[in-house]
């Protein structure tokens, strides 16, 4: 129990640390019924830290009204695609946002269009379509509390959010789940 608490503390603290922890590779989700020790819920922040470290960012930004991917965005998304291909058991939600100077309905549609542009690029880069879902938040979730024209660039964005994978159906008995190594 003590070890579990220590693990939890370490893992939960991970996103707050400036240097992401080193990561040992893809992790298989636990079968249903397994004790919830170091399960996918805990792994997500670590996976996201790893995605940010390997791809440079989990976010790409857009000009006002635009859904065109910039050269910088393409570099980031190519690296994200490579990471997602290496982690086929991780589900990604591609979440589109628009800035607060858009009207509410148009912001929702624009966020969806941006998310679709990112999803299409990831699929074209080899990510299986079923690994990706898209959603738009419109202007409902700004990243910056400030509200003026300089926030356009910050809030016009698409974020790749990693999610707990759906419980897989196992055709055959699985090996015993392995706990992450010490010092993880």
């Amino acid at each position, binding site marked *: 129990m003590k070890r579990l608490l220590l693990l939890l503390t370490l893992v939960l603290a991970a996103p707050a640390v400036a240097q992401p922890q080193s990561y040992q590779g893809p992790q298989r989700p636990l079968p249903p019924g397994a004790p919830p020790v170091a399960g996918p819920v805990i792994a997500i922040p670590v996976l996201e830290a790893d995605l940010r470290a390997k791809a440079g960012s989990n976010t790409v930004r857009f000009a006002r009204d635009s859904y065109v991917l910039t050269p910088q965005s393409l570099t980031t998304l190519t690296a994200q695609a490579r990471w997602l291909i290496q982690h086929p058991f991780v589900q990604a939600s591609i979440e589109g946002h628009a800035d607060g100077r858009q009207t509410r309905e148009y912001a929702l549609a624009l966020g969806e269009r941006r998310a679709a542009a990112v999803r299409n690029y990831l699929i074209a880069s080899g990510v299986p379509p079923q690994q990706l879902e898209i*959603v738009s938040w419109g202007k409902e979730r700004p990243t910056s*509390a400030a509200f003026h024209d300089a926030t356009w660039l910050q809030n016009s964005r698409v974020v790749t959010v990693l999610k707990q994978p759906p419980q897989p159906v196992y055709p055959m008995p699985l090996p015993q789940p392995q706990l992450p190594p010490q010092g993880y």
Partner: protein
Amino acid sequence: MRYWCFRSLALGAAAMLAPAAAWAQSGEPQLVVAVPSLPTPKNVDTGGGQTGVLGIQIAQLIAADLRSSGSIVTIDPDKLRRYTPTEASAPLYRNWTNANAGALVQGYIQARDDGRITVVCYLYDLKTRREMTRAGFAVGAEDWRRAAHRCSDTFHKAITGLPGHFDSRITYVAETGSRMQPVKRLAIVNWDGTNHNFLTQGEGTVISPRLSPDGQRIVYVSFTGGMPHVRVMDLDGGNDRPLLAGPPAMSFAPVFSPDGRRIAFSMANEGNTDIYVVGAGGGFPQRLTTAPGIDTAPSFSPDGRSIAFESDRGGTPQIYVMNSNGSGQRRISFMGGSHASPAWSPKGDLIAFSRWNGATLSIGVIAPDGTGERMVTRGWQDERPSWAPDGEFLVFQRTQQGTGVAWPFTVRLDGGEPKRLAIPQPGSDPDWSGASQ
């Protein structure tokens, strides 16, 4: 709450409506209406206060309502003589000649045995010495304001020929919490800020509420389940359900048709947003637009035959109009900048919109044929216009630069300073209900 009306006299009132309407439009000076206190046969304590006091308050409220419409001047109760309840239906015209008024409001208030109150009000033309209209209501004593507002609506219609907005309500999204973690609740309030109620409790993000024409249902967008989708519920919070069955699809921008039978909305798929229409009870949606790009924010014309909407098929978002079956799509906004959130006026003659000129968002109006575009507000960020049932006022969302705090404001179509809606906390996405039934 139940109302009873003098239906037998409705015909007589309608016959007198025509000359009265001409009065308001002839460019003459504004009509002066004397509004003395309503007498009561017996001063009784009720749940809303003493009937004698309520008689004064109702008269003051009617005077305030009529004054706010702009084409009417009022003389308030404290400057006028008192009269007896029996005079209410038989005014002593000679006693009012010194009031220098063109019309006179009389009536009475009476406590009922069942705890409610009866409010009766008459409007008399002091020149022709004839009754113009009358109305009567039995309401809970605490609802005396609604009775007064409905008297005002009746008078407004008799004087101007147009329904008033005094008994109408505004639904909106109450906003608390921080900007990055907002708590959004559906709320409804009388246009004057009274009777404020929350319809949801902030458990999920909600936006874009619209009332049904009969005021009994509300259609809105919820983010519960991770995907924004259109939901419908009764005004008492019951019967809350998704509009569309089947797998989750991203649907938004809902609006009822004027007969309340259909709901138009947008659905997004792979970067392409189109407008659909479906029965208000759900079913299989009919697709109305097919252009690549974003088609959203539909708004029905009052006869239900046309739909105004927003589309960026031409490069920037602009206002388009189509027949309600999707045919005859044409752009109507050409003034430069981009145009969003069209709202067709209940009179049918204008479409309000929000225009982005490169630096600010402001509210303007344009005729459905694309002529006569003009701006009504000059805010830093004004959006989502919605019409009062009289077609003379708009409610919209105004956002403050820097803080991003938004409040609903109302404004007269012919200009004047927008007024902040009297609600307890900031809010967004206001929608003004139709005329009361």
